[in-house]
């Protein structure tokens, strides 16, 4: 009964409904002139900041939010398959799933499932190759049980052989189905083409999935190297008070053992630089096109970094306000989606390129439009209005970075893990406001080389036109075995 009172209280706290009669105002003018005449008040907004605590050398971020009787625990371990050799690729990829599904020293997989359902915990376990992220959402009164169960799942995993086999079987099936989705095939092959045997270029194959690569020893090895205290950052948001949960968090952290050895550094990729057209022949009603080349711009290269992000927004990263979508979709009707990409890592080269899909007959014209659009920005500064649109999107949309406590804490955890300043977002928003047409031109003229793109196309060469394809550059046909 007491919970229903709490329930009512939190819902009512969302705001008060006032039953005043409607106010009838004069009908408003609409249209461009009326819209431009609107004046918007400044937002009075002070972004909430998480508190940072040190627990046994582990950074723990907390952000209170008492609107709902829920708490979310965010766990991030730096480290993943990308830090290790190919022999640990399958085990490293499987690790988050097996932490969730593989049982613990005390609980069978089935018992873990039942406990999660009994307490109505909501969990997610994932990896991007460089880290493992785990979340658990719980009603506040079950937080002790949630932390206890999560600690057991993370630190005492059983890697149940049946669950390992289920995971392996589904991966084998996924390998067989790789060619079913032309988009997935294009992106994975493009990564492989550019990054070769670097982890970014790896695609799971049957050799990776040999049972020997998924032995208990392999799991123990990758688990021991990743799931340890020195790699851990923790976050908690929701209906909590630090003083009340400190001892619980302390116990949780102490159950995670210190790391036996530091993680090896992430390998530095060498990105292939052989411009031309790479074709995967497939009888399709729509070609998939991915193109890019390497750039050596780094995250720390201020102010070029800001000019590059604004420039990418103008080129094709900014949706309908960007040039590639405006040309390829709005003007030509070639494609439903078209965008550019400019990845700017901290420690190694990134990619600058574009992606689209179009009917076979429009494949080469669409590539040409994209390359032309790139060339225009390489040699000419963008319009100040384009800069304004890209910057306003970030500045006026700044408040959306603080829509939920989870967003704020997860972002800060990422900054800590990456050794970025915790006010990096604020610096970014300030930095983009200094971008000028000249600085965007400088970024593109220095880094963008439309005539040196590696262009991968999945499609039907008879309908695309082999000669037309060759007009884009040297043509290489890739033989990709797909299916069983």
């Amino acid at each position, binding site marked *: 009964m007491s919970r229903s009172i709490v329930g009512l209280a939190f819902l009512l706290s969302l705001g008060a409904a006032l039953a005043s009669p409607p106010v009838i105002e*004069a009908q408003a003018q609409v249209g461009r002139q009326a819209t431009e005449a609107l004046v918007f008040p400044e937002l009075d907004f002070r972004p909430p900041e998480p508190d940072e605590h040190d627990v046994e050398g582990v950074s723990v971020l907390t952000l209170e939010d008492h609107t709902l009787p829920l708490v979310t625990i965010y766990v991030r371990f730096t480290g993943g398959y990308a830090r290790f050799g190919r022999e640990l690729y399958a085990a490293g990829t499987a690790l988050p799933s097996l932490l969730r599904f593989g049982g613990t020293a005390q609980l069978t997989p089935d018992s873990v499932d039942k406990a999660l359902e009994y307490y109505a915990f909501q969990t997610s376990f994932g990896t991007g190759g460089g880290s493992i992220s785990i979340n658990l959402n719980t009603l506040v009164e079950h937080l002790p049980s949630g932390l206890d169960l999560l600690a057991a799942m993370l630190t005492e995993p059983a890697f149940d052989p049946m669950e390992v086999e289920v995971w392996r079987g*589904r991966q084998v099936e996924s390998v067989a189905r790789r060619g079913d989705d032309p988009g997935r095939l294009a992106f994975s092959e493009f990564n492989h083409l550019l990054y070769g045997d670097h982890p970014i270029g790896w695609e799971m194959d049957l050799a990776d999935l040999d049972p020997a690569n998924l032995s208990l020893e392999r799991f123990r090895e990758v688990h021991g190297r990743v799931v340890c205290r020195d790699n851990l950052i923790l976050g908690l948001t929701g209906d909590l008070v630090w003083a009340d949960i400190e001892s619980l968090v302390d116990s949780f952290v102490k159950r995670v053992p210190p790391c036996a050895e530091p993680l090896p550094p992430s390998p530095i990729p060498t990105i292939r630089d052989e411009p031309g057209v790479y074709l995967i022949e497939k009888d399709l009603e729509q070609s998939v096109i991915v193109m890019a080349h390497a750039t050596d711009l780094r995250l720390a290269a201020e102010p070029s970094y800001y000019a590059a992000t604004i420039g990418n927004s103008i080129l094709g990263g900014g949706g309908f306000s960007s040039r590639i979508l405006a040309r390829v979709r709005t003007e030509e009707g070639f494609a439903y989606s078209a965008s550019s990409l400019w990845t700017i890592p901290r420690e190694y080269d990134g990619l600058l390129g574009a992606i689209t899909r179009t009917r076979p007959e429009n494949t080469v014209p669409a590539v040409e439009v994209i390359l032309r659009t790139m060339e225009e920005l390489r040699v000419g500064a963008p319009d100040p209005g384009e800069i304004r649109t890209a910057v306003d999107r970030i500045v006026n949309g700044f408040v959306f970075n603080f829509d939920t406590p989870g967003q704020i804490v997860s972002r800060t955890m990422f900054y800590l893990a990456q050794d970025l300043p915790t006010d990096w977002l604020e610096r970014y928003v300030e930095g983009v406001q200094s971008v000028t047409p000249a600085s965007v031109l400088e970024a593109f003229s220095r880094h963008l080389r439309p005539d040196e793109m590696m262009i991968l196309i999945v499609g039907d060469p008879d309908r695309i036109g082999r000669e037309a394809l060759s007009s884009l550059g040297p043509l290489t046909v890739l033989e990709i075995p797909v299916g069983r």
Partner: protein
Amino acid sequence: MAVALVMAGLAPSMSAQATPGELLPVREITLENGMRLVVLPRQGAPTVSFVSQFNIGGVNERLGTTGIAHLLEHMLFKGTTTIGTRNPDAEAALFREMDAVHDELLSARALGDEAGAAAHAQTIRELEDSARVFVESNEFDRILTRAGAQGLNATTTSESTIYFVELPTNRVELWFALEADRMMNPVFREFYSERDVVIEERRMRVETSPGGALLEAHMAAAFTMHPYGVPVVGYMTDLETLSRRDVESYYRRFYGPNNAVVGIVGDVDPDEIEALANKYLAQIPRGDDPPRVLATEPDQRGERRVTLEWDAEPQLRIGWRVPAGVHDDAPGLAILSTVLTGGRTSRLYRRLVLEDRVATSVFSSLGPGSRFPQLFQINAAPLGPHTTEEVETAVYDEIARIARDGPTENELERVHNQIAASSIRRVQSSLGLALQLVESVSLLGDWRETFRYAEKLRAVSSEDVRRLAAEYLVTSGRTVATLVKRSGS
């Protein structure tokens, strides 16, 4: 058991008492032109979510003009008589020329004159290029982008077309000004190139997607009369012949404010919202009440099967005819769906994926809409070398078991716990709440119904689930669609 008791406390037991959700401080507004708004203020970051839902979708279409609701959704981002243009009169003159040439194109095509049709298509492209000189490209989007808008988009379903965007709260009036303008003064510029965009969307979602193609084949086989059988994106042949005038007249027919519901959730003042609604939206002229969908699907008198050959690994879809989402049996069918495939301990997941290992995935759902008799759907992908036949056999075996014995009390308690927890989690997102409130008003006439539904789910018994499985999941009401690998591929 403790959890169930604790969480049941969040909502009063089955009495006439209101559920916590029903006590949310929602302001209901009905304008003189019939437009309905639901406004929910909530504390937090200074952001607000807007949802406009029109009761128009795939079911309002006919063969020959399929895909028109979805194409219209695209066109409503093209601007108005002042936004998106430098010279609306010059544009209008060119539209008339384009429409006339398109008529000639259709005549040529009807006569089999492909060369003539191609020449007319080229003329339309040239006219559209001429009109583009007067276009301020994507201006509607750009105004919102500069305002910091997030997630500007729309979606068309079988039964509704939904537009949504989130804005900082100091831009609330901007949304009203833009929405009123596009409801009163839309201009369907760049129509023929946008029609090509939609054709590319269909190529992406259907022509090159085995799952999309199988869904289309499944619905067409299951619904022979009712428009649920028609794909929302439209058939290719219809998309290639839809005209700008078709879409314009469709807009006039279905986009009256009396056919719209607006949801606004965020850090807003309901009084201010009501004043702005009266200022901007009340002036939109009321439209005709759209004609109701009268087509009904005849009784199914036996199993139907359809096979699709594709260059892809096998997939399976099974659908059984069940009542509409507003029917008294709908909550029980939703529980049945969760018992069968909701999570790792569900019956079909456990049997097919974990124990027998004949499938790599299995899901169930009710659809494709909710306003009319629909399907209880199961889709699964076999785990090689197992076949769709083995998956089917295991599915029918489990359904026979549940139709005989019903779910256990433990299974039901698990589902009820999930419902109780989700009833709290569902109010976390402003946009999610706005979508729920609007759909509740559109479908059931009252925003509170979305919260009452959780109570209806909680009232479902094991015997209810058993009865529904036995009554509806029968061979004679079943349509099975199988995707098989094309030989030689």
